[in-house]
């Protein structure tokens, strides 16, 4: 069990859709923060020989760096986040969000789990009744099998229930391969290539709304097949600052009119050993959403993170 370091986080904060100003400001400030850090060795250049003609002159060979044991990257990390926003008076709204993450690495195996719930109610005027404006529940399970230091096979499954996307359930299966172009303690850059199976169960209310709007009856379920490309980057700028981003593109096959794009970005800065501040942004674009559903969703969150252990 050596090397296993359980970490538990509790996040308390608020989120607000469409509000990206804070994140953009953080992103603008990033380069100046980054330049304050020692330059990380992204590309190292090694000469073929040390430049000496002497081959047999050394008394001892250089000490070889010991090989990294298979369990060197073992880890156990768990995070729980919860946040909320409540306003009353002239503007009335209530928003609750919670996220839980678990990552377990054992030798060549890694499993990560994530679950999230978001809920919001609001009223346009003080006299109106509060109406639900956000309601979604998500879960994801992913398994990675590292076949070398840089190459991994993975399979992931995720489920999403989203009232305002018109979904009782969206189930995705994503098998693929991942390649780490950079895998250093402070830098990780990786790409994924794979297949995506998407199975939707549409809400009855969405079917009725679509029928009233267009006169057409859409199917209760829908299955799509896509090719999936993903690129991710993680940079631990310092002991107190980390930046993570990822872009995902799904291209429908064989019907190419179906394509989706997703982008996530987040900055996590430690305030103390126990607390940190996390700013995250998420964008999801669906080129062919369900009838009556907008194609783009964004969410910005500012979270206070509490690290229990």
């Amino acid at each position, binding site marked *: *069990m050596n090397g*296993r370091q*359980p970490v538990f986080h509790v996040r308390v904060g608020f989120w607000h859709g469409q509000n990206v100003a804070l994140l953009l400001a953080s992103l603008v400030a990033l380069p100046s923060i980054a330049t304050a850090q020692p330059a990380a060795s992204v590309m190292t250049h090694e000469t073929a020989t040390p430049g000496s003609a002497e081959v047999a002159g050394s008394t001892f060979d250089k000490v070889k760096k010991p090989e990294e044991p298979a369990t060197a990257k073992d880890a*156990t990390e*768990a995070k729980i986040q919860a946040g909320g926003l409540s306003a009353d008076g002239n503007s009335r709204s209530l928003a609750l969000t919670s996220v839980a993450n*678990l990552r*377990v690495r*054992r*030798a060549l*195996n890694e*499993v990560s*789990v994530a679950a999230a719930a978001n809920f919001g109610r609001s009223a346009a005027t003080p006299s109106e009744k509060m109406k639900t404006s956000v309601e979604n529940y998500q*879960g994801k*399970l992913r*398994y990675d*099998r590292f076949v070398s230091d840089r190459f991994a096979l993975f*399979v992931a*499954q995720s*489920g999403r229930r989203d009232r305002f996307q018109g979904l*009782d*359930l969206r*189930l995705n*299966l994503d098998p693929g391969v991942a390649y780490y172009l950079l895998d250093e303690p402070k830098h990780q850059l990786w790409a994924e290539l794979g297949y995506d*199976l998407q*199975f939707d*169960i549409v809400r*009855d209310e969405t*079917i009725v709304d679509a029928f009233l709007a267009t006169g057409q*009856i*859409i*199917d*209760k*379920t*829908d*299955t799509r097949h896509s090719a999936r490309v993903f690129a991710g980057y993680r940079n631990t700028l310092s002991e107190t600052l980390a930046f993570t981003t990822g872009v995902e593109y799904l291209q429908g096959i064989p019907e190419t009119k179906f394509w989706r794009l997703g982008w996530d970005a987040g900055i996590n800065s430690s305030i103390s050993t126990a607390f940190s501040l996390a700013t995250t942004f998420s964008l999801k674009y669906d080129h062919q959403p369900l009838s009556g559903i907008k194609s783009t969703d964004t969410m910005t969150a500012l979270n206070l993170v509490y690290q229990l252990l």
Partner: protein
Amino acid sequence: MFRSTLILTAGSVALSLLAKRAHAESANAQVSLNQPSVQLSGLPEGRPTKNYFELGLLGGLLFPSKDHELQDRNHQPFDSPVPELGMRAGFYPLAYLGVEAEGTAGPTKTAGTKTESGKAAGLWGVRFQAILQLPAEHLTPFLVLGAGGLGAGSTATGTDVDPALHFGAGAKWSLDDFVAARLDVRDNMSQKNAATANTPAHHPEVQLSLTFTLDLRQQPVVPMPAPDADKDGKEEPPHRI
């Protein structure tokens, strides 16, 4: 009805027999995540034997009964089998006993009529179950018994969810201490269409999954204590055990 009762009774007896053995082996066990596992004979060193979690990615085939009552409007059979995907999470307080929750969903079609083709449909299930198993180095046979909900929806039948019971058997094949392949063969029972209450319609199911063993404790698995039947503080010679 008699058949279901007989099957459930047989399953219950088998489960109770397994539970008896589990209880005997784990009489002093306490549920504490930070309590170290004790090495059990026959298991590879380091494999957790209690208070551990399992997660699973599963795929399978569900064979829905033509007599299901999973409809809100019109009754129509669903095409069979239904390919399904799902996830499973379990907690094992003992090496022999665990509790699990799982969710599955899969696409299908209504059977249609002579004049109209079938409509796109979906079946899904949420299940909670107890699992009793006999852990071994590689092959771990098990029995499951549980309850949950079975749902279906299409524009032809509407959307409905019925309570369901299920039972079954299977086996896990450990690929290493972390990953195992798992096979489940089950019968799901929900209310039968146009029948008296509690008359079951049977929906057999086969699942194949990848299962991941998560031991989140800080303390490693410790060797099984040496046998000391006479309490003299010395290990007994093997022939006296």
